[in-house]
């Protein structure tokens, strides 16, 4: 049928791994926002959910790093992290190989993506999935943009990937939802973990909610690294979601939570 839903949310591992170290009011508010997102996904009855993440060397490494990757496997597993560390039990997730192949074929018309029939989900996908699909009911198509190992995927190519996702979703009879995960400013897994540039995050979200392509693509990696840390490179997934949805966004949750290392965010975007 088409792309029927688009949203963005945070995927920081601390959201589950360090849940007990957080102020319960912060944690519960975020979890409630994710429960709200779960209900919105259920309401659109997607046949498959594309989860577009910025994975962290779970499947893709500098021995052969794709700028973009899309899954078309039968099943996926995760978390790749120690379940006791991430505090998410291992699960097997249903994929959609036939649909995945059709989507990949269409995306390849404009963007040179890699495809993968094997994929171990890391926190970039499994943290949101744990909260959005606790019963493991969803059919998932994982997607990835290289936000970790430089040279990184340029922002304008992330936009082009988002456009390709939209065109591909609109070319199939199935109902497709898109959830892009990441962080805005953050300095993850370093001694700086917990540092958050809230003003930068709010400015980025202003650009995203307005779907202002020019301003979303105006960042240089040097500026992002300086102002938003190495974690800020993950804005690529949110940018791709804006390109796919084409509409205006609605912010449903925003709160800097240092023990989770990011401004925790939930937003949806109108499909236009």
């Amino acid at each position, binding site marked *: 049928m088409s792309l029927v839903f688009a949203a963005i949310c945070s995927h920081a591992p601390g959201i589950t*791994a*360090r849940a007990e*170290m957080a102020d319960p009011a912060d944690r519960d508010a975020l979890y409630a926002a994710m429960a709200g997102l779960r209900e919105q996904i259920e309401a659109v009855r997607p046949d498959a959910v594309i989860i577009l993440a910025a994975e*962290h*060397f*779970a*499947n893709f*490494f*500098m*021995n052969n790093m794709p700028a973009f990757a899309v899954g078309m496997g039968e099943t996926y597993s995760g978390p*790749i*992290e*120690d379940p006791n*560390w991430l505090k998410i039990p291992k699960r097997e997730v249903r994929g959609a190989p036939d649909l995945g192949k059709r989507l990949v074929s269409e995306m390849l018309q404009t963007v040179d993506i890699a495809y993968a029939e094997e994929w*171990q989900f890391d926190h970039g996908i499994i943290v949101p999935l744990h909260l959005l699909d606790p019963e493991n009911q969803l059919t998932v198509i994982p997607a990835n943009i290289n936000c*970790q*190992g*430089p040279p990184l995927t340029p922002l304008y190519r992330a936009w082009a990937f988002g456009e390709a996702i939209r065109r591909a979703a609109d070319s199939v009879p199935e109902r497709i939802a898109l959830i892009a995960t990441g962080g805005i400013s953050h*300095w*993850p*897994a*370093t*001694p*700086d*973990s*917990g*540092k958050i540039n809230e003003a930068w995050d709010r400015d980025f979200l202003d650009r995203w909610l307005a779907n202002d392509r020019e301003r979303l693509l105006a960042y240089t990696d040097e500026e992002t*690294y300086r102002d938003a*840390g*190495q974690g800020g490179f993950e804005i690529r997934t949110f940018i791709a979601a804006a390109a796919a949805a084409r509409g205006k966004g609605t912010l449903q949750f925003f709160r800097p939570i*240092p*023990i989770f*290392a990011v401004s925790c965010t939930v937003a949806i975007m109108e499909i236009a």
Partner: protein
Amino acid sequence: MSLYQLSKLLYVLNRDDAAKTLFKSDPTGLTQQFALSEEECKAVLDHDVGLLYVLGVNGQILMHFAALCGVAWPDYLQAMRDGVTRYGPVRAGLYAMTTGADEKVAGV
């Protein structure tokens, strides 16, 4: 300096159960599969998270190595701070420390 090889070892260790088993039974055997400098090899064998951080290992790989070695999150952050104090600033990569050695941004 062979940061790529060092990072590759940790990447493999994070995702491969056989490598985890080897790391426990014969850690030297695992390190010999990669072209490491003496300093890099020692950092792995000593579980020296601080030195690995200073050598430039990406935190997204390093935090899982720390977890594998039984290092809790607050101790992982402190090991990196101690590493910078002991060995100097991060020498390569994107994961430099921008906060002070006594600064605990998120309270840990």
